[in-house]
């Protein structure tokens, strides 16, 4: 019979998800990473969070920066409250004991302090100095083991901070229950922080490297979406049914509309009308079926004006709670942070119609483009699991031409419906064309239709009969007869 281990919730955004519920209470962890990687922030943020949920913390340093200097830096972060220090969080230095009396005396001192302070979390900063004081690898093992043993006996969880990158076979690694590695690497001219759980006993923690950041609020971790949602977190209702695309003539082409909780990709060049179709899709939102525009390029006011020019009153819809325009004016950020924000927005408002304009913004944030397919698959899978009907846009590079660039390989694993939009030059005029390339589990008109966008809204009608080559953008009228 299996049982659940008691957890110490870290309170650090994303880290508990990574650890599948938090640190194992009473276990010992190494937090390693080069100077500046965020070890001290992670430990102190965890300490402050732990105190706020009723715990008591002992922070012991083995030669590091002075406590006062540390408090000055921590004072710039929202999570830190100096009033907690000296009571629920005790900072002590064990350096003198280490230097004068050795490792055994440090263990003795910390054991006494854990008991005296009734600490439920012990942070030891500067573990490398313990290794330097040890006469052999066995001494280091004994130190970690003794510390861990005394702490566990007192129900105290231990974090050992070290700036060395200890290898898997190191004495410290073999003795602890988990190893959390923090790092920073350059991607072009950008520095990206990362976190990796190199060892986690007692939990099916999310492996691999995940992105994180440090800002005024402290550390935030963004688990790789495809790892967090390797299986959808919930079952959708799987109710068959149709939802309107917001354009009646497009619904006709789709044999009654889009399948509920399906994902539709609109591909086309800049200016073809992808955003307009997205706005039309959202215009069908109601209080019961709210819509969310998750856009990157056009601020809300411009979208409202654009919608108004198509005959949609977005302002009123927003006021009555049937629509939200969520603008992401980001040029830098993290892919998984963005994915998490979208899911969070959808959950917060219970959105059932979502437009993402466009997938290109996600792609630009991807440090590893090879991840994109799995990322999009996880993202759309989660939205489907929430019974959300999704419309995605993708801007094709070439305005004309036979080449079609897709956001990711293996599109069928990401999207259910695929629509291609192109400018078509025919009879000395430039026209918009929409062709439905794929509809999952449904009938649809296969012939290209002309898209008309005007003050009376959006409509599609049959056109280009007797012409070929529309998908390349340069149609050729077939000779009649």
């Amino acid at each position, binding site marked *: 019979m299996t049982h659940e281990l008691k957890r110490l919730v870290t309170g650090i955004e994303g880290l508990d998800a990574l650890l599948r519920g938090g640190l194992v209470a009473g276990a010992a962890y190494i937090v390693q990473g080069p100077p500046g990687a965020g070890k001290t922030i992670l430990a102190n943020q965890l300490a402050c969070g732990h105190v706020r949920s009723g715990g008591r913390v002992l922070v012991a340093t083995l030669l590091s920066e*002075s406590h*006062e200097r540390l*408090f000055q830096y921590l004072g710039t972060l929202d999570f830190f409250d100096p009033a907690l*220090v000296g009571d629920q969080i005790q900072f002590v*230095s064990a350096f003198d*004991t280490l230097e004068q009396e050795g490792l055994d005396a440090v263990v003795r*001192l910390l054991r006494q302090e854990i008991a*005296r302070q009734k600490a439920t979390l012990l942070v030891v900063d500067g573990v490398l100095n313990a290794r330097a004081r040890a006469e052999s690898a066995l001494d280091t093992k004994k130190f970690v083991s003794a510390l861990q043993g005394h702490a566990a006996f007192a129900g105290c969880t231990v974090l050992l901070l070290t700036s060395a990158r200890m290898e898997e076979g190191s004495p410290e690694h073999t003795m602890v229950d988990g190893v959390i590695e923090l790092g920073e690497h350059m991607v072009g001219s950008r520095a990206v922080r990362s976190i990796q759980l190199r060892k986690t006993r007692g939990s099916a923690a999310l492996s691999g490297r995940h992105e994180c950041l440090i800002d005024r609020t402290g550390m935030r971790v963004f688990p790789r979406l495809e790892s967090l949602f390797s299986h959808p977190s919930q079952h959708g209702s799987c109710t068959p049914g149709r939802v309107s695309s917001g354009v009646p003539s497009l619904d006709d082409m789709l044999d009654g509309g889009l399948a509920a909780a399906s994902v539709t990709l609109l591909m086309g060049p800049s200016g073809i009308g992808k955003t307009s179709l997205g706005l039309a899709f959202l215009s069908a939102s109601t209080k019961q079926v709210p819509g969310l525009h998750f856009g990157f390029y056009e601020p809300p006011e411009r979208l409202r004006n654009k919608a108004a020019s198509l005959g949609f009153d977005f302002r009123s819809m927003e006021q009555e709670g049937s629509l939200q325009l969520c603008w992401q004016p980001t040029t830098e950020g993290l892919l998984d942070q963005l994915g998490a924000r979208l899911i969070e927005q959808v959950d917060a408002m219970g959105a059932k119609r979502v437009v993402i304009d466009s997938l290109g913004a996600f792609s630009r944030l991807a440090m590893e483009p090879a991840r994109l397919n799995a990322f999009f698959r996880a993202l759309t899978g989660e939205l489907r699991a929430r019974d959300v009907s999704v419309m995605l846009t993708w801007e094709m590079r070439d305005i004309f031409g036979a080449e079609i660039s897709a956001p990711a390989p293996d599109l069928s694993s990401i999207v259910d419906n695929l629509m291609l939009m192109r400018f078509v030059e025919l009879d000395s005029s430039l026209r918009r064309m929409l062709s439905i390339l794929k509809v999952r589990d449904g009938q649809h008109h296969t012939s290209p239709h002309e898209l008309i966008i005007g003050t009376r809204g959006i409509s599609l009608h049959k056109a280009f009969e007797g012409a070929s080559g529309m998908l390349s953008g340069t149609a050729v009228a077939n000779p009649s007869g």
Partner: protein
Amino acid sequence: MKTILIVDDEYLIAEILGYALEDEGFQVRKASNGVKALAALKDAPVQLIITDYMMPLLNGEELARALRKDPAWRTLPIILMSGAQANQGCPDLFAAVFDKPFDMDRMIATVRDLLGN
């Protein structure tokens, strides 16, 4: 020569303060927590104590309370150095309280005042 006992678990602060006081002609002894400070007082008398607040085994306030109970040390002047926890502890126990980081000249002037130099 008057002797000052510096009680601080933070090695560097004890070192820096110790050098500054020695430069001023004081003899300095050090202890890294309150327990060690009480033991040091048994070895040889001191004329003043400068103590940190947060320390293992016995903190600055606990040390001061222990000394106030002992007739031999009841009137010994004690200066408290405290950090983020500046508002903690009982000020009546101390002849002066300094928030870390403190001004060294002001500390030395206070020491001189308390020792009547």
